């Protein structure tokens, strides 16, 4: 039009369009659509797991350090948020959630130290240490759970600046806002110099060292930031989704679940974490509906759990074989097929 010499970018190809559109729908349309079940059972856990996926992706996808202890950082986040909220009266909820993230980051940095010496699977196995240690410490020392006899504590109500977020939609919006902010920051981060340092360390550590990338600082920063985000996700998991704080849910299976999310979604993509989390959250629901519909009463909870494991395992292997770069790459390929988008 006014500048015919420069071919204008097609509107839909702008990288900002898809996330903005998603946000507009998430804030403007979704809250008016469905019943509370959809928010409590699907949307809120989906958002929290996506955030955890984004956090792990910074560490594993971008920096190349495989961690199998994500659930431990979630647990640290959840219990730290609970304790900050409990022991410092008058501390705003958001502040205790952020402090919880900072606590997780601190522990992440400490447990990131071995990454300087250990690589690959040796590191991955070492991250299991934190998984078991944190779970042990949280159940062993009553102080963390304020000496609650069952180890299960009710989460405090969600109040921010006098506004209550204690309805299903409220919890969803609360989660959505925090997830959006942290995701946007991560999205920015990976395009900065620091983000490039992450990728350089992943792709060739020696070359990165030669080029002057501070390996120690980069790795510890990745561990810290990733743990911060995962810690906040843990606090949200306890406060906004489960509404109880307990260590049992933050077990090894949860850690693997988050690893699955980023593998299925796609390593080193932010949107992959969301796609992977969507699949992981929705798929068991579909399977249980499908199972009870097809097989009726034979499909008891035991059989359901086993077949869920089998289908999940099969799905992962199929994904790895068919599309090792995950759902994000699949989406990219689909987009190229549609002429309007390419």
């Amino acid at each position, binding site marked *: 039009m006014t500048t015919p010499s420069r071919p204008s970018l097609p509107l839909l190809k702008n990288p900002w369009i898809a996330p903005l559109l998603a946000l507009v729908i998430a804030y403007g349309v979704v809250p008016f659509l469905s019943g509370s079940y959809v928010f409590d059972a699907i949307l809120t856990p989906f958002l929290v797991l996506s955030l955890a996926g984004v956090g792990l992706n910074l560490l594993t996808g971008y920096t190349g350090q495989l961690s199998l202890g994500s659930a431990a950082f979630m647990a640290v986040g959840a219990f730290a948020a609970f304790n900050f909220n409990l022991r410092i009266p008058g501390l705003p909820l958001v502040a205790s959630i952020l402090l919880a993230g900072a606590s997780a980051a601190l522990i992440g940095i400490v447990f990131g130290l071995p990454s300087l010496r250990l690589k690959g*699977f*040796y590191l991955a196995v070492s991250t299991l240490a934190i998984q078991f240690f944190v779970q042990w410490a949280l159940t062993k020392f009553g102080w963390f759970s304020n000496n609650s006899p069952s180890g299960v504590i009710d989460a405090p109500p969600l109040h921010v600046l006098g506004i209550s977020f204690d309805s299903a939609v409220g919890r969803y919006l609360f989660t959505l806002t925090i997830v959006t902010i942290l995701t946007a920051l991560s999205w920015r981060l990976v395009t900065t110099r620091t983000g490039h340092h992450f990728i350089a360390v992943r792709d060739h550590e020696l070359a990165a060292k030669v080029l002057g990338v501070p390996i120690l600082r980069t790795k510890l920063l990745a561990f810290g930031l990733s743990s911060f985000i995962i810690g906040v996700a843990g606090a949200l998991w306890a406060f906004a989704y489960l509404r109880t704080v307990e260590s049992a849910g933050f077990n090894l299976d949860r850690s693997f679940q988050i690893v699955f999310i980023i593998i299925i979604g796609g390593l080193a993509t932010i949107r992959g974490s969301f796609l992977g989390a969507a699949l992981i959250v929705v798929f068991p629901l579909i399977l249980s509906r499908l199972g009870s519909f097809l097989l009726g009463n034979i499909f008891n909870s035991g059989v359901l759990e*086993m077949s869920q494991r089998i289908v999940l395992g099969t799905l992962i292997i199929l994904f790895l074989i068919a599309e090792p770069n995950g759902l994000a790459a699949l989406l990219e390929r689909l987009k190229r097929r549609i002429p309007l988008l390419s």
Partner: protein
Amino acid sequence: MPTWAWYKKNKTNKFIVMSDFDWLFFSEVLVGGLLAGVMYSLVAIGFVLVYKTSGVFNFAQGSMVLFAALTFVSLVERGVSFPLALMATFALMTLLGLTIERTVLRPLVNQPPITLFMATLGLSYIIEGGAQLLWGAQVHGLELGIDDTPLEISGMLISKFDLIAAGISAAMVALLTAFFRYTRIGLSFRAAADDTLAALTIGLKLPRIWGAVWAAAGLVSIVAGLLWGARLGVQFSLSLVVLKALPVLVLGGFDSILGVIIGGLLIGALEKVSEVYIGPFFGGGIETWFAYVIALAFLLIRPAGLFGQKLIERA
């Protein structure tokens, strides 16, 4: 029997503590730990076999242990005789190994190690789910006909079962060593592990070797499954023995059978001793993570591990 906690409580003089230290009890704990360590190595050896030859970190080893034990015990419960059940289980594990190689690993050849690891993680979900769907999720007792009466050796009480289990493990390691050293297929395993490209060049059929390795890992998991199953009962938690084997692997090196044996002994002994003498200070239950801390602390001092390749960094 006096422990450190007891001495602390009674405010005993340190000098008296030393002379009063119950060495007999200590050696009993130590030997018990060493024997438990052999059981850890047993699971770890299955990892080493697969990792050494194909570079796959096989997380499904634990679920294979569960599958083997569950199959065996279910067959025996259905009236199949002991040797027949053993043979049937071995046949099934071989079949499983070959199937895994053909359907999961071959399509993923040349993928980065993390992808292969993820695939075995998926595999462990499938095998765990499948085993329990097939044979049921209830707990089975497994009676191997070894009585578990304590044996008295120079004043120490040692579990007979643990001794026999250690003996069986030692026999298996000897068998594996002989196999790797003297048989044609064993040598080709080592060739493939040493230099994949060179092995291909001289005409070794890598897929066949990998299939055989997975079958061998299946055999190891039968032995591990039966011994662990007799100890813990055959149930879902049996697949968690994999978590006991991982620190042993980190300590001993993913590619060294000798390493994981010594690593297993070391971790077993340290774990038991610390559980008895240090554990009470923490209120017990430290065994879930203590082995990992031992392995980590050791590697921070000596990054090359016990017997792994002498690299500056573990890669």
